[in-house]
């Protein structure tokens, strides 16, 4: 019999992108609360750690069979986005 159940873990990539969104908004908020101050850059660096930690947790909990699976790629895109966001705080 054909399977009539959804067999793709869409929740993990969605949560990973939620983490990216939260990380992005907090970094931006810090940058306008402390405009052109080093503390904004430090906050960005510090906030990146729990964001990456959340990604690691999602990897462990999600159905990440490989990096080319949908959950794996979703997490990869989110991690790239998070590291990309951190970049201006380091070199910008």
């Amino acid at each position, binding site marked *: *019999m*054909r*399977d*009539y*159940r*959804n*067999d*793709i*873990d*869409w*929740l*993990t*990539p*969605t949560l990973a*992108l*939620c983490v*990216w*969104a939260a990380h*992005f908004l907090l*970094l*931006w908020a810090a*940058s*306008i*609360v402390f*405009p*052109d101050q080093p503390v*904004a*850059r430090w906050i*960005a660096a510090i906030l990146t750690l729990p964001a990456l930690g959340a990604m690691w947790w999602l990897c462990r*909990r*999600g*159905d990440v069979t490989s990096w080319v699976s*949908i959950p794996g*790629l*979703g997490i990869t*895109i989110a991690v*790239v*986005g998070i590291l*990309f*966001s951190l*970049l*201006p*705080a380091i070199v*910008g």
Partner: protein
Amino acid sequence: MSTGPLDRARNAMEGRTSETGFDHELYRLFPTHRPRPEGEVEELEKIWDNPTGWGLLTVVNNNYIGFFYVAAAFLFFLLAGILALGMRVQLAAPLQDFLPPDTYNRFFTMHGTVMMFLFAVPMVEAIGIMLLPQMLAARDLPFPRLSAYAFWAYFVGGLCFFASIFVGLAPDGGWFMYPPLTSLTYSPGINTDFWLLGIGFIEISAIAGAIEIIVGVLRTRAPGMTLDRMPMFAWAMLVFAVMIVIAFPSVILGTLLLELERAFNWPFFDPARGGDPLLWQHLFWFFGHPEVYIIFLPAAGLMSMMVATVARTELVGYRLNVLALVATGFISFGVWAHHMFATGMPRVSTGYFSAASMAVSLPAGIQVFCWIATLAAGKIRWSTPALFVVGSIGIFVMGGLTGVMVGMVPFDWQVHDTYFIVAHLHYVLLGGMVFPMFAAFYYWNGMTSKNALSERMGKWVFWLMFTGLHVTFLPMHLTGFMGMPRRVYTYLPDRGLDLLNLVSTIGAFVIAAGVLLFLFDLARRFRFTTSEDAGNVYGGGTLEWLPTGMYSTRSIPLVRSREPLWDDPDICDDVAEGRYFLPNTVTGLRETIITSPINAEPQYLQLMPGPSPWPIGAAVFTAAFFLALTVQAYAFSAFAGVVALVCVLRWLWETDRPIQQETADIGAGIVVPIAITGPSSHGWWALNTLMVVMGMIVFMAIFSYLYLYGINPEVWIAPPSLPQTAGIAALLVLALGSARLSRRILASKPKGAFPGQAPWLMAAIGAALLGAAIWWDWTGWSGAGLDPTASGQGATVFALLAFQACTVAIAGIMALYLGYRSGRGLLVGPSNVTLDVVVRFIGYAALQGLACALVVRLFPGG
């Protein structure tokens, strides 16, 4: 094994447990083999029949409303295109006087506004309303009257808005209406008010459509159509609608705030009194940039479906494509301030938005590569849709590349507000939306017309439009590099701009020639029909190509793959012979099957409303309400508002009908309940979505408060006393408890028993407590000396209170409506949809009131 919330959610997402307890073995019963009784199709036709003549104004069925919607959006495309031609004639040579400066300002403002607000978003929403029910094999979308209201509100409001150009009242501040140019000082007439109230109103219609689409995609899919089997267009429309729900409240709030500033002198954007014009830019672009993806993603969904058909193979990377849609939706919310690089934002901030602007090209690129791979994997049949599809990929990639260029801050500083940006955005929007739309017109024309459009003429249309686009916009990159600014009605001779502008003007007329040819073909070949259509001309494999009538498909099929028509050659006959779900009408009314959101398991039978004059009545008077506000006819505005409200309540009156029959056999002996309440019901999902919209408005209002607080905290005053805050919170908690108690009272009654007046009275007490809380909050701030006209703090606090007051007023009206229904004996135990909605709305209003009351006190001045 862990059983935490995430595990449970994931198990449901992955289908390791049934969502509803439905036994999948029952699917083996389909297709059924017993012959169906005579007369079932005739009965379906009778029930789903629609009035004719003037009665067409009352139709709510998606076949008609979707068609009206598409036609209206295309009309606005033509009107805005004519404005563009006028501008190009003016710019064909230097120092021309074809359009005076003021008229030119109105032309470019109306061109941008109409294209973005009256054409692009409504068009994709219209295509969704037209195609989705058939694509999902539902009888109709779940709230047909809401669709009708959304369309008429948009159409009437849009026509009134466009008519402003003929009486010299069209807005002239650019499509993004930046203050202080649009403040009362610099734009003293009512032109700007037309834009603010008109667009705010039209956005409400877009949100109504988005709620319909979210619930429709998640809850009315054919059984067996798991998330993994959804057509790409349905996925795209789901992401699109969610993005509307998140993004549009921001522009609705922005237009309200600017209108409040203009009408009542509340200084949200006046830096002299603690406001900030950049707040408008944040509010506008938080909507404005996701808007580009809101337009692009549904078109990408259409592209993904057409690419598979023109290449005659399955879409390569279906799941990757879905992931890319979702990721694009998310990341597009992180790019809004790249429109503000030239405003002097902190350096690190600009870096974040620059990085996100480049990151968003990753998922967009995934989609493009999936399409290219599909075309490469299959065998292309070079039909007209194929030409438009392939052409749009090339155009969109060109626009995307220049997008990455302007995402870089130093480059953006150089080309900001020049014709380079005009070229970039037109490549993106024409390649990302207009060309896919024309492809879709040709591809899906067979669903609604007796005759297919001409292939030969279609190819001419494509080549004229494709050539014209490049002739028009490619030179604009150069004029931009040479420093020609946007939105200026002329230029000086001998600056090297003459020839390039002339070429652009010629190109614009070549595009127009393509569109004219399309119109000619349309007039020659297109004949609207709902039954004798030209059919599946290009050989698509999805469900919209099943044989249909006004009731959609005769029976609702069991979906076993992504392209059922390719994989099951018998499915068309089986569906037409009634061998699947709901081959007849069970209750003698319009009905469809509601399925679970992830695995699409049958849950219950929804009764659907038929034609009604009330949605169009509500739409016309809502438009009149906003129009009268614009011209400051406040008494008539109040009258129109009351009539609109009465129309809405009257249309809702029939949608919660008590019915004796409790269950229904939906085929093969499978029995489901009829019209349920609670978290499994589609109404629950719709109300939740509405609450998200309202919550986003409050969220953005709180953002505005905090943004202004961050600029001038020293001039802010101290809040009212702590005991008052505690009192307001207590009132709101009591309101929440009172509303919930009303539901408990009703739930304690046996089936069909009348519970007396207690349930609605408890709900009304809840609404009254909400009213007391907002009154106390308002007078508290007034008593503390806060004046809405004095400072940014006063303006934002009273804006929040005004929004809460409106929410409370709605809760009060709902409670009275419930009381009226109770008085007519329509409120019977143990559960009732209307009461459920009222109780949950009062609960939401209480929580919103708590947020509004507490947050503004956490960041006080003084």
